[in-house]
């Protein structure tokens, strides 16, 4: 069941419709600092009735597109910790492999439940006040690999790596970039400055998504009719959103979005119990 019945539309009308929705998703995501997956998957499944497995696969494509397209921007500010990103990618990619293997066996209803839980978690994270506790002390692994920055140390490296492994599993299972988990791990466990955590996480997201996207593509779950307009729409929407950000009342939009996230989370969980 879906809110919109697309069966009476022509193929091109459907593609246009998907692209418009995805432009909106990309725009909102850029305004709120969220990835496209958190918006795209619920819209495709709840509003358009697309099966969650196709929605997740399409979402991964959009994540790769936005991350690869924006990588230069992440590096330009010189906040991205490149060495740490390479190190942590070992964790996220390993996790993504496990996530893809789990996705073969997990029932679709469980995907809805997991996604609903993730949306609720994201809403709570958006409410939390961020307090930075910086340190110049580094874990021995960070010292050996020179992972620390000029003004900050990197702590609890094994814990951070394990958290990235978990983030990778979720990325492959739910079609998200898991940026929210990565930032949390780098911020709270590894004690990185918030801006460095965000920049480094954004830099890694594309690699995490590609880890499972290739497998989904060969398995036949990525359909260009869905992934194509979604990816193109999100890229365009993100581009507009990034430029509109300075003129928009982001705080009000953020508060509205938290409420919307909670409502959609309940809908996804409800669908998980009743599908």
């Amino acid at each position, binding site marked *: 069941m879906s809110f919109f019945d697309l069966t009476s*539309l022509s193929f091109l009308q459907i593609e246009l419709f998907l692209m418009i929705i995805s432009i909106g998703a990309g725009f909102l995501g850029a305004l709120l600092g969220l990835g496209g997956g958190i918006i795209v998957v619920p819209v495709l499944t709840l509003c358009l009735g697309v*099966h969650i497995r196709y929605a997740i696969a399409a979402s991964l494509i959009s994540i790769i*597109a936005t991350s*690869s397209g924006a990588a230069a921007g992440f590096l330009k500010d010189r906040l991205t910790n490149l060495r740490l990103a*390479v190190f942590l990618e070992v964790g996220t990619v390993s996790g993504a492999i496990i996530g893809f293997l789990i996705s073969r066996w997990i029932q679709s209803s469980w995907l809805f439940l997991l996604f609903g839980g993730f949306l609720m978690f994201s809403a709570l994270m958006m409410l939390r006040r961020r307090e930075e506790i910086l340190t110049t002390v580094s874990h021995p692994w960070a010292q050996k690999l020179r992972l620390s920055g000029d003004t900050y140390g990197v702590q609890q490296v094994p814990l951070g790596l394990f958290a990235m492994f978990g983030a990778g599993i979720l990325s492959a299972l739910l079609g998200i970039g898991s940026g929210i988990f990565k930032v949390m791990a780098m911020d709270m466990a590894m004690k990185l400055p918030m801006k460095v955590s965000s920049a480094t996480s954004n830099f890694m997201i594309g690699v995490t998504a590609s880890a499972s996207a290739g497998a989904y*593509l060969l398995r036949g779950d990525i359909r260009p009719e869905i992934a194509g307009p979604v990816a193109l729409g999100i890229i365009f929407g993100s581009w507009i959103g990034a430029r509109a950000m300075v003129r928009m009342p982001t705080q009000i939009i953020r508060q509205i979005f938290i409420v919307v996230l909670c409502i959609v989370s309940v809908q996804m969980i409800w669908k998980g119990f009743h599908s």
Partner: protein
Amino acid sequence: MKNDEQIESLEMRIAILLRWGVVGAGIFLACGILLHPAMGPNSFGSYHDYQQRSLGTYLSENNFSAPLLIAYAGLFWLISLPLIRVALTSFLFWRQKEKTLSMMALSVLGLLLISCALGLEI
């Protein structure tokens, strides 16, 4: 930290290359979709239910149509961009004599290739 600055500068060039890569992949995707023959009105309805069919099976069911192949070429191109980034990063670190990080990036590339292979039906 001149080494780090050099790495950052080269990584920036890779990132700019990726940006153009996204544009190219987007063009292929858009062409494939626009050239796709008109489907019946209920075509999107087939995505309400999940039917696991490998990429090869799906392509053969659609007679390996050129627009579909073009669209999938765009998708392959897009998915390969992070892999290319990781490969170039590994090479970059190797050139800068950062062998540990280079091997780490190479292992990430190996894991990425293994993960892609998981989608193949044996």
